[in-house]
């Protein structure tokens, strides 16, 4: 899937598979696509990237997304929270998205003590632009959002939780949407460029 634009979408711009880790320079699984103005429904995500065993048999160990651009999405420009030991974003451009970009992993409960996590590398993340032409001079139909560049990574152990009492499943201390924080999980952000965060909106 290459060179597509998804704009004005409800919930998701793209729901796309990740590619083999380390192949960002040559991959054509999902490349040079753009999502913008995504919102409404339950979500507003530019691209949700999932591990696909039909694309890469090793996707349960690692999958990657690269060379994608998202702007003005009401949640994350790019998002992943699927079962794999590692997710990598490489060369993503995110502009003026409310929740920035988010890379998260989930492993089975029995893997909570294994090494897993996320990497966001070589990405450019822009905040707002004073000279944006999207709004009319009187701002009559523009809504201001409190925005962030990074929706910080949660790398959780989850699984079926059949051995857990449901009422206490988030113990001991971490509050997250699903499961508990992994004991050896790492969230690494390498060589990223943040620009234009001069206000909260």
């Amino acid at each position, binding site marked *: 899937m290459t060179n597509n634009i998804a704009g004005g979408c409800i919930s998701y711009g793209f729901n796309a598979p990740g590619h083999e880790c380390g192949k960002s320079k040559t991959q054509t699984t999902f490349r040079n696509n753009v999502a913008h103005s995504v919102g409404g429904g339950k979500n507003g995500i530019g691209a949700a990237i999932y591990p696909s065993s039909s694309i890469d048999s090793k996707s349960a160990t690692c999958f990657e997304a690269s060379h994608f651009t998202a702007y003005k999405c009401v949640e994350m420009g790019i998002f992943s929270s699927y079962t794999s030991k590692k997710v990598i974003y490489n060369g993503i451009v995110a502009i003026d998205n409310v929740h920035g970009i988010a890379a998260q992993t989930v492993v089975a409960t029995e893997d909570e003590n294994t090494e897993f996590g996320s990497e966001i590398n070589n990405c450019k993340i822009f*905040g707002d632009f004073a000279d944006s032409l999207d709004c009319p001079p009187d701002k009559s139909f523009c809504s201001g959002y409190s925005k962030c560049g990074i929706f*910080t*990574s949660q790398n959780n152990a989850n699984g079926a939780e059949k*051995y*857990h*009492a449901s*009422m*206490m*499943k*988030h*113990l*001991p*201390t*971490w*509050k*997250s949407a699903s499961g508990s*924080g992994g*004991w050896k999980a*790492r*969230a*690494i*952000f*390498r*060589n*990223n*460029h*943040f*620009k*234009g*965060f*001069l*206000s*909260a909106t």
Partner: protein
Amino acid sequence: MQEFIDTTLEDVDGNYFAYMTDPNPGWANLADCGNFVCTGPKNTLYKFTNNKYLGVAPMPEKTPSFLIIPDVPGYTDKFENCVKKKEWNAYMCVNNPDVGMLLFESLDEDRWDRNVAPIFIQNFADSKQ
């Protein structure tokens, strides 16, 4: 722990660089953390190494390497080389290699059903208090 390496910050205002969210008091319920609010957001560490700055910088010193830890009253104010950043709801620590994350876990079979909290740890040999 979130590790930022070789980050470039261009036109990033110090008032909007970071904000460490407090735990939601509503999490103190049986479905989440029992009688205590879940304290995960207060047990976080952001580590920045080898930052580069362009234009407006979030701190005038343009510090290349530092840590951010949440503001925990009565605790983080005792850390050496850490300065409170009210706008971040956090402390910024420079040249403090001793700050890290200590993780420990009960191995009991019923660890998901039984909470032991709060836990206080004291190091009498090096304690500043």
